């Protein structure tokens, strides 16, 4: 089945935003609707954002109205530092219930949804003494959940299993992600490894496995593009010992937590400002690793191994004091502005960045399929559709030349490195060679380079 009308929950998470950005590039996809309780943090082109409550109670109406065929549910809260306990529970248990209700076929009133992708977490497996060294997808959790978050995850997965049983016509794909690391994430592992001296439990050196945030978004995209039915573990290749991770980060490992009464000692350290969350403790003792082969067998390739993910974290940790406040603040969602840019007839699309214009449409009416440039031209001119995808891009001088330096500067942060480079070449060769513009592009390009490394 090819997904055409997609609903993404948890749009404001990094992976949700990245997934929407990636799907926007595909002209085959007609509609992308994102919902979350806070505005998105990444710049989006044609994704429509709807703000909802934690419980996601009105989602069924959105699904019916927009004839959604694929729900990508990335909303699950799997880390206690992200939000409060009560909100997490509301989101994880009640939210899952509502999402599944929206996707399920009621009697006499079928849901348009044919595919459900559910983002879960490896916390589902827990971390215990008698665990296998590598969890495979068909292993049940051997012990009852320990923390509230784990309880939520198990409950949510149970509802998804139930849903699969009751809706054999809908393809259900559950992705269990290992602990993620990356510059745009806020996780308990990240803050734990961010401490100057990393506390560990005396006498234990657990095995740990991570996944890079970009691989995480890619996994979700892979699941949208291909028909994957079943449960899959998503974790980078390679399992490290905690001591090796801390070594790679260039930090000191301090085995200060006693093996007995660890919880008390951790609570005391937490009061003193150390970032050790409760769900970390079993992992610091017993570790956890996943068998990631089933997802790899579907054709997915990870860009980073666990070791590389840790090395990337090290670079980020080094840059943090320098870049604090500077990076990441380039985009802020303002609903009025986004509405205006997307739907106002006064907007000349030539002024927007050279990407797909909004092709969102009412159910049933389909836009002319074509390549990226072709669609851009159609919407850009607003006149007769130019069907030939091989035509060169419309001469940019007309639109670009009319922009003032200030307008260009305002646009720059929303562009990717490739576009920036193209724009720089153009400005240097054909434009007015404004130094302010060139310098601004150079600055942004160097920023992209450092963050890409």
């Amino acid at each position, binding site marked *: 089945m090819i997904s055409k009308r997609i609903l993404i929950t948890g749009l404001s998470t990094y992976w949700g935003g990245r997934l929407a950005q990636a799907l926007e590039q595909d002209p085959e996809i007609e509609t992308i609707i994102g919902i979350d309780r806070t505005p998105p943090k990444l710049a989006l082109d044609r994704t429509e954002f709807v703000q909802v409550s934690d419980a996601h109670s009105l989602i069924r109406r959105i699904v019916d109205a927009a004839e959604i065929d694929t729900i990508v549910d990335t909303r699950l809260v799997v880390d206690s530092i992200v939000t409060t306990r009560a909100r997490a529970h509301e989101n994880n248990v009640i939210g899952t219930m509502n999402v599944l209700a929206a996707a399920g076929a009621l009697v006499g009133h079928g849901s348009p949804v044919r595919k459900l992708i559910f983002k879960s977490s490896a916390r589902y497996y827990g971390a*215990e*003494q*008698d*665990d*296998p*060294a*590598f969890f*495979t*997808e*068909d*292993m*049940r*959790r*051997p*012990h009852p959940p*320990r923390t509230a978050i784990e309880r939520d995850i198990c409950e949510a997965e149970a509802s998804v299993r139930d849903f699969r049983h009751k809706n054999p016509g809908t393809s259900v794909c559950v992705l269990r992600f290992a602990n993620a690391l990356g510059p745009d994430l806020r996780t308990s592992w990240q803050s734990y490894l961010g401490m100057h001296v990393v506390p560990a*439990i*005396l*006498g*234990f*050196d657990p*095995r740990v496995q991570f996944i890079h945030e970009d691989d995480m978004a890619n996994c979700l995209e892979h699941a949208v593009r291909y028909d994957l039915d079943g449960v899959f573990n998503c974790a980078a*290749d*390679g*399992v*490290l*010992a905690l*001591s*090796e991770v801390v*070594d790679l980060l260039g930090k000191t490992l301090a085995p200060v937590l006693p*093996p*007995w*009464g*660890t*919880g*008390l000692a*951790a*609570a005391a350290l937490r009061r003193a400002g150390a970032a050790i969350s*409760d769900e970390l*403790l*079993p992992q610091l*003792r*017993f570790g956890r*690793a996943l*068998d*990631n*082969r*089933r997802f*790899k*067998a579907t054709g997915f390739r990870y860009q980073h*191994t666990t*070791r590389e993910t840790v090395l990337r974290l090290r670079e980020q940790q080094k840059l943090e004091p320098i870049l604090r406040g500077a990076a990441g603040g380039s985009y802020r969602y303002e609903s009025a502005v986004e509405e205006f840019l997307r739907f106002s007839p006064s907007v000349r699309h030539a002024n927007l960045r050279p990407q797909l214009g909004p092709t969102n449409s009412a159910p049933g009416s389909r836009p002319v399929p074509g390549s990226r440039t072709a669609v851009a031209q159609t919407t850009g001119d607003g006149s007769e559709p130019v069907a030939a995808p091989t035509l060169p891009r419309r001469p940019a001088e007309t639109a670009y030349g009319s922009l003032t330096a200030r307008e260009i500067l305002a646009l720059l942060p929303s562009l990717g490195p490739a576009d920036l480079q193209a724009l720089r070449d153009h400005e240097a060769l054909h434009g007015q060679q404004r130094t302010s513009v060139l310098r601004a592009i150079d600055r942004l390009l160097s920023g992209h380079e450092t963050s890409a490394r």
Partner: protein
Amino acid sequence: MADETRSTLRQAGREAARIDDDDRLSLGDESPGGEVAHRAPGLREYLAPIETERQVTDWGRSERVEGFFDRTLVDFYYNLWFRCEVEGIEHVPSEGGALLVSNHAGALPPDAPMIAKAIKEEHPHPRPVHLTMEHFFKGYPGLSMLLPKIGGVPAHPANVHRLLYDEQQLVLVFPEGRKGSEKLYKERYRLRRFGRGGFVEAAMRAGAPIVPVAVVGAEEAMPIFAHVTALQKLTGLIYFPITPTFPQLGLLGALGFLPAKFKIRFLPPVPTHDLGEEAPWDDQALVQTIAHDIRASIQDELIDMVGKRRSVWFG
């Protein structure tokens, strides 16, 4: 929270070890989470490639730590202290997965590292051996850090299957488990029950041959005269033995092996890949028969070796 965490080690750990350990170690218990997946054979090619700069393998094994122990302690015990004598090394296959099954003895059993060392020293194609250990050790501070680094792997059916089938490694199991290592001196060289035959099942699933191993000497190297239950409870260990050196000489006494002469005999491998049926491991009768045969052959071999031995110390 504190109580919950403490229970990780104390209750969950100890109780679980108490109830299940012999079965787990024998790999026979279909415990929750313990089922071995029926995976498509094609998944083997998706194993992670080896990263050369790594300090430990995906199993947590460290070449550096293992090499250090191998050059010092194990080398000393193998060559000078126990003066190991090895027979039938040709029965250990040079490639492919194989399950080594051995008898088990001694409070701190020296047989496991000696068998691994024997393969390293005597075999024409030395291969690393993965030693299965009880889950208890994963939860005990210090040991949980050290044992995986020198080749210990928790005795979980899924672990054994992955090593044997996917990674084609040598795995050493002690089906007697704790019952073997805790038995008293007066019961020496009498094999205990081989669990529930789970090791045969694991080998069958992986299609790997079983190589029985008989070890003489470990029983006399650290004889156990008695067990102290109160101290066992206090320390949280699986048992607290009285041996010639422990606990009189403290922790060092735990390494105080007597210089018994070691003889390790590898027996001809028992193939498991040609048992015909679709899933021979479902046939419990067959599994039990093979397990019993292997136990009997090791027992016979032990009686033969002990009978021919002229001296405990000089062989």
